[in-house]
């Protein structure tokens, strides 16, 4: 690796902190129905955790955690979860995104609505976190190894 590495203090602190950031992000997403939080905020926190990791350990290490192919698949998956929840309500005979008609496990309509709101929040969170990460990877300058590789390809 030809790139200058960050100091060992920064690397260790980031390595310890990133798991806690990700768990806090999952907490914010799942806590959205009973307090401050939700899919947008939690997704941004989750994406920021992976961006922090990629800033300190390099783009290459970050892309091993979130490859271009995975980010392309996941970004549309999140939106599909949301739209699919709306279509599920149509299948159960209601209007688009009318959660309380879904007869899941013969639960109370308000309970079903709360569960489906959480599903929708997860869909929003997946889309936002993947878009955050792919924006960072697209804007960041290419590493030296990649540059050499692409120049060799041209010759």
């Amino acid at each position: 690796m030809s790139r200058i590495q960050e100091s060992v203090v920064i690397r260790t602190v980031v390595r310890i902190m990133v798991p806690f950031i990700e768990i806090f992000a999952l907490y914010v997403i799942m806590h959205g129905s009973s307090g401050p939080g939700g899919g947008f905020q939690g997704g941004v926190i989750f994406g920021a955790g992976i961006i922090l990791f990629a800033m300190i350990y390099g783009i290459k290490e970050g892309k091993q955690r979130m490859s271009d192919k995975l980010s392309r698949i996941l970004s549309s998956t999140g939106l599909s979860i949301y739209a699919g929840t709306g279509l599920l309500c149509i299948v159960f005979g209601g209007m688009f995104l009318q959660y309380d008609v879904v007869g899941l496990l013969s639960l109370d309509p308000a309970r079903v609505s709360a569960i489906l709101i959480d599903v929708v929040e997860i869909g929003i969170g997946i889309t936002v976190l993947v878009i955050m990460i792919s924006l960072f990877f697209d804007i960041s300058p290419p590493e030296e190894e990649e540059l050499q590789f692409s120049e060799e390809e041209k010759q």
Partner: protein
Amino acid sequence: MKIAALLAVILAGGMLIYAGQDLPAFGDPNSPSYQHPITEYYINNSLTESGVENIVTAVLANYRGYDTLGETAVIFTAGMAVLLLLRRREI
């Protein structure tokens, strides 16, 4: 070209600040959003109808779920546009 872009940004920002003068004061009890009957409806019925304690989430994901779907689609579209314009390597 840069001067034209700067002028456009200053013009848009000035319009927003000018329009912001007409907003109701923060926490004003006579502002239209507090006077409208829909506010009372949300406070009374959001827990029994949508099952979540947080009224903001109930409005965001249940009463205005279609709007939030559009917001998510906007973020997705913006990400795809940046991906198409800025990605350097061939896919």
